[in-house]
């Protein structure tokens, strides 16, 4: 099971965080700090897996963004690496050539995609098309809601 998923930039700015197990804010901060310190300090071309405390950490760099996931002991590292990749693919499909700014300005969409893709720390839907469909539905719903709200109340 994936314990947490973090996205941060090369400069050490947190862009997105998702926790699948309850943690206190203090612990979260500590995890984030440790993750950034260790991951950013890794030399290029070294292996994408780390051991941190009792967790396995899988990270991958896409342009200036680091995607970083904490796994439990029995999880498959390579597979999680692909989970990250899939997430990036999904973002890419939704935003059309995604970049860091997309995630900064449309963070709610990024979270939403993540929610459709992962649930409770497990992969919910592996099919790219299915996630896309549910995203469109959600968007449509949102639009109708907005329309509904913006209509003057007679």
């Amino acid at each position: 099971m994936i314990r947490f998923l973090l996205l941060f930039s090369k400069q050490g700015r947190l862009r997105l965080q998702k926790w699948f197990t309850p943690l206190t804010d203090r612990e979260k901060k500590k995890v984030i700090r440790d993750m950034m310190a260790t991951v950013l300090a890794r030399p290029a071309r070294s292996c994408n897996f780390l051991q941190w405390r009792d967790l396995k950490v899988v990270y991958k760099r896409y342009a200036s963004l680091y995607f970083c996931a904490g796994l439990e002991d029995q999880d498959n590292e390579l597979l999680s690496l692909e989970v990250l990749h899939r997430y990036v693919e999904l973002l890419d499909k939704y935003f059309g050539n995604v970049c860091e700014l997309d995630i900064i300005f449309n963070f709610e969409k990024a979270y939403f995609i993540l929610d459709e893709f992962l649930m409770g720390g497990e992969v919910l839907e592996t099919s790219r098309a299915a996630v896309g469909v549910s995203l469109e539905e959600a968007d449509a719903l949102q639009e109708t809601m907005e329309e509904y709200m913006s209509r003057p109340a007679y």
Partner: protein
Amino acid sequence: MALTIVSQLFPKDMIPAILPLVEEKLTHPKEIIRRKAVLALYKFYLTAPNQVQHIHNKFRKALCDKDPGVMTASLHIYLQMIKENPEGYKDLTGSFVTILKQVVAGKLPMDYNYHSVPAPWLQIQLLRILSLLGKNDESTSGIMYEVLDESLRRAEMNHNITYAILYECVKCVYTIHPKAELLEKAAKCIGNFVLSPKINLKYIGLKALTYVVQQDPQLALQHQMTIIECLDHSDLIIKRETLELLFRITNAQNVTVIVEKMLEFLRTCQDDYTTMDLVGKVAEVAEKYAPNDNKWFIDTMNTMFSLGGDLMQPDIPNNFLKLLSEGFDSGEGDRKLRRFAVDSYVSLLQGEPGNLPQRFLQVISWVLGEYSHLRTDLEPATILNLLAKLLDLKHANSETKSWALMAMTKVCESEAGMAVLQGICEMHCSSMDTVLRQRAQELQNLSLHAELRAKVLPQDISMEPLEVDSSLSFLDEFVSEALAAGAAPYKAHHQRQEELAQEKVLSLEPYSLSLPIGMSSCSFPDRQSPTLPSVSSGLSGDSTDFSHKASATTLKLDKVKRVWGREGYLAKKEPAEEPALIEAHSPVHSADQVGEFSISQSQTSPPTVAAKQEKQQLASSLFVGLGSQTSESLMGKSELTPQMFRRKDKGQVSSLEVGKQTPNSVIPPPNSVDNLLCSILLDSNTDPETSLPAPKQNGIALLEGGQPESDMKTLETSPTRDSGRMAAETEEPVRTKDICLASYLPADCIGATHSEITPLCSSQSVDLFACHVHKEDCLVLVVFISNSSATRVRLLAQLDSEEVEVSCICESPVEEVRSHYVEVWQYSLTVKRPSVHLVVSGLVSFHMATGTPHTAKFSYKLPLISFIRPLTLSTEEYGTMWLAFSHDTKQNLTLITGVQDPLRATLNVLERKLHLHVVEIIGMEGIVACQLLQDQPCLMHCRVHAGTLAVWLRSTVPDLPDCLLYHCQRALQEH
């Protein structure tokens, strides 16, 4: 959307409220909603498995869902459930294999492909489930060979995701029952991984190797060179993994090299967590495989202590000290080792002790205190000065200081150091720290009164048998003396250890114990005595192991002395015993340990850290015996006929100990079941004292012990398996026996209702059956043993359970069953911890008149309802009790429809099926009461609301409402 939130937010208590809604969504027409509902249920299952028990069949439906996404989601639940109970889902193996086959063959819709690999996540999930199912199960494994082969073959593209599948496949292949062909392929895959230039793959390969070497050390040999390359890899993570791998293949020959590598890594390592982990491994390996080279061992430990610093687990130094104090196999070697340790520590202290970590300083001071007298050329004053230097160190904390002071107390015997001592005492007597102050007081008093000191910490050998002595150093001299006289020394160690494992409760700090005695007897002005108990308990927390060891010695001392007296000094007076011991000396010795090992493994001694630790060590030592064939050159002779030794020497031990030891009331009930132990348990039951030994920590001893036991294990597993198969065969005729067995029910049980008589297990000609009898005030488990052979059978049964307390009503559990006769045992059961089903598991061993003993395991499942009895009370009493109970659960149940008064009808069903008592029904509400046997009441309040029955349960016991609710649901469903 709401479902997503449900899975993330909901705490345990709120699940019942939302559960019906989520359940409903399982049948929603949209796939995505079904999928999310399944995952939400998975979350519920993780947080509160009890509450979703009734919908297991819905999971099955989800598994067969036409949408692959829903099926994938349901696999999460299955993975979790199978992890907990692989036996219960063997029947699903076939369907999982079929699913995997379809997936591998690409039958899924295209959009599940990922880089043209069909549904990799699904595949991996399935592989994981299969490996859990196929573990140690030949027939189940047989079903999956074909599909595994297929997946291995298919996954040959060059992409990460295929490698991930391969990795999972390889793990699966090595977990399930082995098949040569597949193993070969898997090994080839691993080879590819390790040799791959891609760093991630290399890492995975190393992981796989680490996993695999446990079964097949040969594989590591093939990749020797790669491993060595990886050791020098620039990436620390790769290096770390390699060390992990090396740790697994350590044996007596390569230990020096590996430890050296590990230490090297330690020096460069920054991360605290890694350091801690690695230090533990170094210590373990070094102790386990320590070659006969004192210098190396001490040096290694020294480096480790100074590198590991204060991060290491506290049991590492403790183990080390234990090792030193108990020694290896010969007294001469021990002495050398200790002398060497003293030497090295003296030189360390003479150097620059300022930057040594606290733990290390503590170890140093202990060793110096205990063994510095072995260095005859060294003046005690010098030691005292060195220790005094420790006290002056700025960074030494009070714990370290008190260790140092204790050491000084032990050393101070000559007049020369008095001046130094006085100064120190004065300084610390006014210390703010109570522990330190007490130590200083002790030191002062003892140093001033030579006579008293001689009594409390005697250094010489002659002493009266009744005196309480707490100095281990004295004992060690005694050991070496006795050894020189040619006696067998090891018995003493066992006895000491034995206490250690069991007497954790009695954590008396030795010196504070001896001091008040000495003081009061000499009528000193004892101004500190009121604070003593608290001080000593605080301290024993700090230096637990040390004090335990010493206290164990104090407690056991008179007995130990007498034993030794007979063997050593009084040898001539009792020649009869002596030869037996000498004869038994070397080979029996190791077998002896084996016996003791297994016993200690089989019982629940009070759950202490030491016991756990010993178990761990035992486990690892077992692994050594099984795993690598190369390492055990040490023990060639002792492994030949272990089984014979076992019985013989056990008898010896008991004959020696019977009558010598004071009866000991704290006997933990023997419990968990290890096949080969029964014969020993038999002995131990007749002689309770012998059943409480603990394994030795000593590395070499472990090695010797490990091998024979593992041999025995393999010897004994085959008969058990046979008996299992026989049980299956005999099942048919068994059914016809039921009726006649019922006639054997004890007289007092005949009136009461009893359950169906079910077969438990059978072995050769002995069959076991059981049923439970509902009595008014208790639940009785009746076990029938029918012996259909022509000979008598001696039986011994052990029953126990996590949830149920079992006590035997009839005579002792060891019995003989005459030929063609049925014997009946009765046990009364009470619930310790409610759960939906309570399982009593047990172990029976049979001793035929001829042939070897057999053992068989069995388990018996009881529904909670059997323990439920109606509770008759008035509405007022109900009201007061309702308010007093704290644990409650609410849920909606279905009402029985189509009758005049649905509430009454429903409650009547419950009353009949679950033995509840309906207190009163007022309009649309009803109150019901029942009790779990032995007065654990549970109250239920029902109200008809919108066509359903809203139930609210309250009880004093935490899990009872949940479980009862489950049974209510079941009862109403069945209706």
